[in-house]
Every structure is written in structure tokens, then in C-alpha cells.
């Protein structure tokens, strides 16, 4: 729709994932003409939603100045922050925790961590939150893992492909995130082997420029986001319905309600964020070789 | 050495008989009568030249003698035996482009020899070198074809045709694309080689002087339909010089006849 000169356009990104529940709900409400953010930010603000399927492309969009805010995993955000020497990206709020797990095949090939030697583990994407977590965990078990090989092969593959790979036995396990964790359990007999219930899964990130130039707007957006997060916790049924509609619109595939509610159990929606936690993630990423040795994250978290 | 020896001695030349040969081509509903009732006898060891303007069927006749094409009617006999297909006893030498560019000079001359059984590799090399020496190219054994001048190319082609030791040599305007100086040299060479190796030769050209210089007999062709119109016997001593005054007289005589036939053919056509 054409936008008149006085209006402020806010460009917000997210993924079509349950872990981006706030965005899914708000996007759906925008579609229905009763926008959550619109109603709280004022009539002059227009929200444009953009759907990305992975963190890096959302971050690229921020680099390319075509996005102001986005829901994203913490690792892509801090990766982008560090690679741009702290110039481009900020984390302005938390969004979701938990929901990620290492799921192994139910056929009993993996009983102990040592059984992973020589096997393949799928992760959603190289360098994303689950991928780093997986590599860190493997390193803690004493395995050597590189980008292209190692004692255990970590295979970044698109989430939708995991199920088929898992069923065919091409991978022994997958370190992934809801709803795929539930899907692997229900449809492929997978068993959760490791679960990090408190790990940060989604954050709200902003372009540094947006924060600089429209700090007040950013602050009000975060407030609305906090409000929305609280609403989610109180209205899970309605939220799930809205999400289901939104996922159908974006992926053209029906998300089964039981899958959604199963995933919901493992997720915790909270806006807490602490620099210490993010610094630990940075250290993890450094340990697995995705970040250079010297990284300054003092400016990463900036709550407006 | 026995096989090799047999390769290098002269084979007895062969008598060719062309009996009432006709040939018609059909191209896109057009019919071209390339040859009509052509008869011709070439004696053993004779050098016969066919002269005529472009398109009169000289190449067609040569191809039929070679066995590369079949006549519609009539037949060709080599020493009384009907010709049914190409054979190593009748080698053809084409215009320039028939040498194989992917082989070097030796490879080209060896090509036909390799298809002869009961010769060892070393013997084949020796035969090939013998003929390359005969045409004066012993130093260019390893040269690539495109590096040779036009005249050298035709020398290689000549060596290639001679190498399988055929009794008949069929030459289709072999010097057509060469310049005058080179051609003069080759006239000398071909006469020398012919005297030495005694082949039956049918030589196609549309250069009357060339025909008079080389042939024992010159057969005059005229086109549409292709027919032999007249025959001239050239009885000058050999080797003949292309620039000699007597040759010029013969040439003038044949040219006159040629022009007359052409104009009468043109009249018929009108």
C-alpha cells in the first residue's frame, strides 16, 4: 500500500517458526487489520513485515539498510555485530528461551555421547544458535569438529529436510528447535538426548542506525513487545490459533495443532536478556572457530 | 625384407575399360545427367588426361572408375574384372584438402599402408619414407599438414597415393589450386615418377596446357550431358616442358576444339 509522507515505516523481520511467536501473532494481527504494534505505536507508524528463512539473510538485510528490526537467533545477531566491528547490529530485547534439543534416532544406536563418533548430526544452519550449541557440546564430550569434517560430522541442513534425513537414517541425530523437535519425536520416533531449557532461542535485534535515529520509536516498540510477550503467556490457546493461521499464510502448509501445543510446552517466552549470557555465547562461538579471537561485545546489548 | 621388397617393386600396370557408363543425379526434383554413354579404354601404363569445363562430369567418371560411386548403367573393368567398390589397386588423388590434418606427413602416408596386412610396422615406415623421398619431402616426415605449402601438400598426397603401390592412379585436378611456378615443378616430378614406377594414370584437369604437357592422350569432355567429344594424341618426347613452343601449338589446337564444342553445346542449349 502506498505510504504518505508523514508516515513512518517500520520494517520488521522474522522467520516462519514457532520460536518467533511474538512476530507470528503480531503479523497475523496486522493481516487482520488489528495490528498489535500499530495500535500501540500510533497512527503514523506503518509496520512492514518481512519473512526470512534464516538468520544470516535477516542480518544481511540490516547491513543492506533494508530492515530496521528483526526477530532472530542470538548467534546470528552477535555474529553480525562482531563481524561489523560493532557498527551495525544491536540486541534490544529477549524473546524466547528453550525449545532446542538434541534428538537421536529411537533405534538405540546412540546410548552415550561417545556413540556419536563417526556419525552425522544435523543442525538448522551453520553458525546459528543450535549449530554452535551442538559444536560446543560435542567439544565438551572431547570430539574434534571443523567446518568441513572432524570426529563427528555436523551437517547444517534446512530444518524441513531433517525429518526425511532422520527417517532414512542418513543422520544419527539432529540438534534443532521447535517445532521440529516435536516433529522428530512424533513422526520419526526420535528421543530427546540433550535439552537446554534455558538457552536463549530468540532475541529482538535492531539496526544500530535505527536505534540511533529513532530511539524513542524503538523504545515504544520494545514496550509493546514486552506487553505482547506477557499476553502470550496468558493466552496460549488464542496465540496458537493466530500462529497457526500465520504459518499457513507464510508456508502454505497446515501446522497440526497438537504439534504446535507440544512445541509450546518446551518454549518459554521472556524478554529478559543479559550481557553476561550473550558473552558466554560469544565465547562458545569463539571456541568452535566461528568468531575471531578478539571480540568486543560491550555495545551489543542496548535496551532503549 | 621380403615383404618390403615386394612392396617396392613395380606392380604391372592395368588396363582400364569404361563401357557405356551413364550416371544421373537427382537433387531436389532437378535431374542432372552427369554422364551419358561414356566409353573409354586406357591401356596398361598409359597416361590419359580428361579435359573439360566445370561441371561436365569429369569427377563423376573418375569416382566411378575408383569405385566410389556406382554407374546407373554400363560398367568399368580393370584388367577385365568388373569394379564393384574402391580398392587399393586404384588410388585416387584429390584436390588439396584430402590430406588428414590430424596426422603428420608420415602419418598420412602410413594411413593406407596400415590397412595392408602382412607388413610389419618398421617396413611400413620404410615404404612411406621411400615414397616421401621420391617426391622430395624426406626432410618433412614429421611436419604438420598445415605447415606445408600447397605444392608440398600435393606432393604428400601423391606419396600417399603411391604408397600402397596401386597399379592405377586416378588424379582429380591435383594441381588446380597451385601457383604456376610450383605447378611447373610438379609437372616435371610427375613425369619422372611415372616413368620410374609405370602406372596407368587417368588425370583430370580443366587446364588444356597441363593436359597436353602430361598426357599420352587428351580426352575432351563437354557438359550436359557429360560426353567425350574428341580425342587428341600428344606425341612429344618426354620430359616435356610446359613452356615449350611445340606444346603451345598442341594447346592452341585443343583449346580451339574445346571452344567450338562449348559454343555448339551452348547453341543446343538455347
Amino acid at each position, binding site marked *: 500500500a502506498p505510504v504518505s509522507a508523514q508516515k513512518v515505516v517500520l520494517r520488521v523481520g522474522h522467520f516462519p517458526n514457532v520460536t518467533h511467536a511474538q512476530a507470528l501473532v503480531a503479523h497475523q494481527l496486522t493481516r487482520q487489520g488489528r495490528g498489535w504494534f500499530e495500535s500501540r505505536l500510533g497512527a503514523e507508524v506503518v509496520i512492514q513485515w518481512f519473512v526470512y528463512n*534464516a538468520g*544470516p539473510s535477516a*542480518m*544481511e538485510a540490516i*547491513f543492506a539498510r533494508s530492515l530496521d528490526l528483526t526477530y532472530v537467533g542470538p548467534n546470528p545477531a552477535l*555474529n*553480525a555485530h562482531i*563481524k*561489523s*566491528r560493532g*557498527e*551495525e547490529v544491536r540486541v534490544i530485547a529477549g524473546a524466547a528461551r528453550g525449545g532446542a534439543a538434541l534428538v537421536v534416532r529411537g533405534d538405540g544406536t546412540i546410548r552415550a555421547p561417545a556413540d556419536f563418533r563417526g556419525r*552425522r548430526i544435523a543442525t538448522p*544452519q*551453520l*553458525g*546459528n544458535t543450535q549449530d554452535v550449541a551442538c559444536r560446543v557440546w560435542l567439544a565438551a564430550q572431547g570430539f574434534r569438529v*571443523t*567446518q*568441513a*569434517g572432524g570426529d563427528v*560430522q555436523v*551437517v*547444517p*541442513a*534446512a530444518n524441513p*529436510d531433517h525429518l526425511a*534425513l532422520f527417517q*532414512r537414517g*542418513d*543422520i544419527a541425530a539432529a540438534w534443532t528447535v521447535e517445532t521440529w523437535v516435536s516433529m522428530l519425536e512424533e513422526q520419526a520416533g526420535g528421543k530427546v538426548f540433550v535439552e537446554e531449557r534455558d538457552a536463549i532461542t530468540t532475541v529482538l535485534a535492531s539496526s544500530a542506525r535505527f536505534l540511533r535515529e529513532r530511539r524513542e520509536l524503538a523504545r515504544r516498540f520494545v514496550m509493546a513487545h514486552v506487553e505482547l510477550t506477557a499476553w502470550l503467556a496468558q493466552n496460549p490457546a488464542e496465540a496458537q490459533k493466530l500462529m497457526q493461521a500465520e504459518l499457513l499464510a507464510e508456508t502454505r502448509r497446515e501446522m497440526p495443532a497438537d504439534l504446535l501445543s507440544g512445541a509450546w510446552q518446551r518454549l518459554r517466552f521472556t524478554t529478559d536478556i543479559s550481557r553476561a549470557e550473550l558473552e558466554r555465547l560469544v565465547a562458545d562461538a569463539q571456541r568452535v572457530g*566461528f568468531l575471531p579471537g578478539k571480540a568486543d561485545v560491550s555495545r551489543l546489548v542496548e535496551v532503549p | 625384407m621380403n615383404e618390403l621388397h615386394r612392396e617396392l617393386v613395380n606392380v604391372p600396370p592395368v588396363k582400364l575399360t569404361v563401357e557405356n557408363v551413364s550416371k544421373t543425379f537427382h537433387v531436389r526434383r532437378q535431374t542432372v545427367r552427369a554422364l551419358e554413354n561414356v566409353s573409354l579404354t586406357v591401356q596398361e601404363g598409359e597416361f590419359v588426361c580428361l579435359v573439360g569445363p566445370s561441371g561436365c562430369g569429369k569427377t563423376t567418371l573418375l*569416382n566411378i572408375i*575408383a*569405385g*566410389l560411386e556406382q554407374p546407373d548403367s554400363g560398367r568399368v573393368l580393370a584388367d577385365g574384372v568388373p569394379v564393384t567398390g*574402391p*580398392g*587399393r589397386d*586404384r*588410388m*585416387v588423388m*584429390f584436390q588439396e*584438402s*584430402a590430406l*588428414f*590434418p*590430424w*596426422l*603428420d606427413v608420415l602419418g598420412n602416408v602410413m*594411413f*593406407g599402408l596400415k*590397412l*595392408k596386412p602382412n607388413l610389419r610396422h618398421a617396413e611400413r615406415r620404410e615404404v612411406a619414407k621411400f615414397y616421401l623421398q621420391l617426391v622430395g619431402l624426406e626432410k618433412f616426415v614429421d611436419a*604438420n*599438414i*598445415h*605447415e606445408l605449402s600447397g605444392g608440398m601438400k600435393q606432393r604428400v598426397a601423391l606419396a*600417399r597415393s603411391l604408397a*600402397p603401390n596401386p597399379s592405377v592412379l586416378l588424379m582429380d585436378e591435383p594441381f588446380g589450386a597451385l601457383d604456376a611456378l610450383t605447378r611447373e615443378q610438379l609437372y616435371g616430378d610427375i613425369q619422372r615418377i611415372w616413368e620410374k614406377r609405370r602406372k596407368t594414370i587417368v588425370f583430370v584437369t580443366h587446364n588444356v596446357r597441363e593436359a597436353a604437357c602430361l598426357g599420352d592422350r587428351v580426352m575432351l569432355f563437354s557438359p550436359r550431358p557429360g560426353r567425350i567429344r574428341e580425342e587428341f594424341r600428344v606425341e612429344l618426347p618426354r620430359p616435356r616442358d610446359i613452356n615449350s613452343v611445340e606444346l603451345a601449338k598442341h594447346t592452341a589446337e585443343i583449346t580451339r576444339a574445346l571452344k567450338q564444342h562449348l559454343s555448339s553445346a551452348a547453341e543446343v542449349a538455347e
Partner: protein
Amino acid sequence: MKRIAAVGGFFVVLILVWEALVRFGVWSPVLVPSPLSVVQYLVRAIADGSLGQAVLVTMRRLLLGYVVGVAAGLPLGLLNARFKFFQDTLGLIALGLQTLPSICWVPLALLWFGQTEAAMLFVVIMGTLWSVLIATDTGVRHVPPIYIRAARTMGSRRLHTWTRVILPASLPFVVSGMKQGWAFAWRSLMAAEVYVTILTGFGLGHLLHYGRELHAMDQVVAVMLVIIAIGLLADKALFSPWERFLHQRWGTAK
């Protein structure tokens, strides 16, 4: 000498200016990596073996698929040139499939073969096969008939004529078709590696893709340089000998 110096100087200045532009913040390092960081990445990736491993995986796929493609394309091209029926059916299909970017085969290949080497090979073969087939066909059609007649008078027949005359005579076409096939195969393999994850090995395309995922522009540019180097080397190793042979024998332009 002077010329080499001038050219060398040009490239040195180019790299220095580039480094300076990045270092003084005119170009952001997320947009353009500094030459130094590219070299550092190369050193690291060579040292930890990941680059060597990726090159190996990619080259294995490429060469294997290419060899199969050529081995199938040559005889099919000959059949095409020889039999009208083949030409009217297979020839038509080949013409269509040659214009199809072979990356378009990826979805089907993944379904048919799974995320395995076979899928990659299939894509490479589809990139090679049709170019070689069509070039062989064209080459055979362009063989001057006089070569065949000359060979026949010397006693060459059927198979001998095909292998010793027709095939070598069409070599210039065949080689240029093989070159085109190589270019297409190389491009489609890169695209396929970037686009899909194959469980059985990580190639250069994956490294490039990962560079993008990690916003590691030094890795992206370094892998691009490696891809260029391999492309040039492959050209040198695979086609230069043939082209030199053609140049020497045929006297065709280099």
C-alpha cells in the same frame, strides 16, 4: 621487463589501496574484506585442512561426473549423427536439455538420489552430457566427405573409418563441446553445492555458502579466489594440451 614491472606495480597498488580503504573504514569489513584478512583465512584454512578437504570433494564430484558425461555424450553424439531416427528424437531432447540450466535438475536429483553424491553427479552429468553430445553430432556432420572418400580408397571400412577418420576429423568440434560442457558442469556444481547440503562431503560451494552464513567475507572472497584458481588450472590441465595439439596439427587459432 618494463612491462612486467608496470603490470606488477598496478596490481600491488590495487591491493594496497583496497587494504587502506578497508582499514580506514571507508569500506565496511562486512561488505568488503581486507586483502590481509583474506590471506589470513587462506593460511588458516589450508593449515587446518578444511580447504584441501573441500577442494578434494568438489574435484572428485566434478571429474567423476564429467568423465561419465563425456563417455556417454560421445557415443550418443555419434549415434545421433549416424541415424536419422536418433537425431529426430534424442537430438531434439538434447537440444532442449542443453538450454536447461542444470541447476534445475537439483530438486529431482535430490528426490531420486537423496542428499548424496549421486545427486551431485547427476547434476554434473546433465551439465556435460548434452553439450558433448551436440558438439560431437555437429562435428561429425562437418567432417569433409572427401576425408571419408580418401580413407575408403585406401581400404578403410566401417569401424575403422569411424575411429580413425570421422572421430579425429571432428576433434575440433568435440573439444570445444567438451570445453563448454566443462564450463556448464563447473558452474552447475558450484550452484548445487551452494544451494543444497550433501551429507557425504562438503565442497567449495559449501565453504562459500558458510562464509556467507557467518558473514565472513574473508572466507567468501578467499573461496572465490580458490575457485578461480581451480578453474584456470583445470583449463590449463584439461584443455590446453588438446588445444595445443589442435593448434599444432590443424593450425587453428589458439
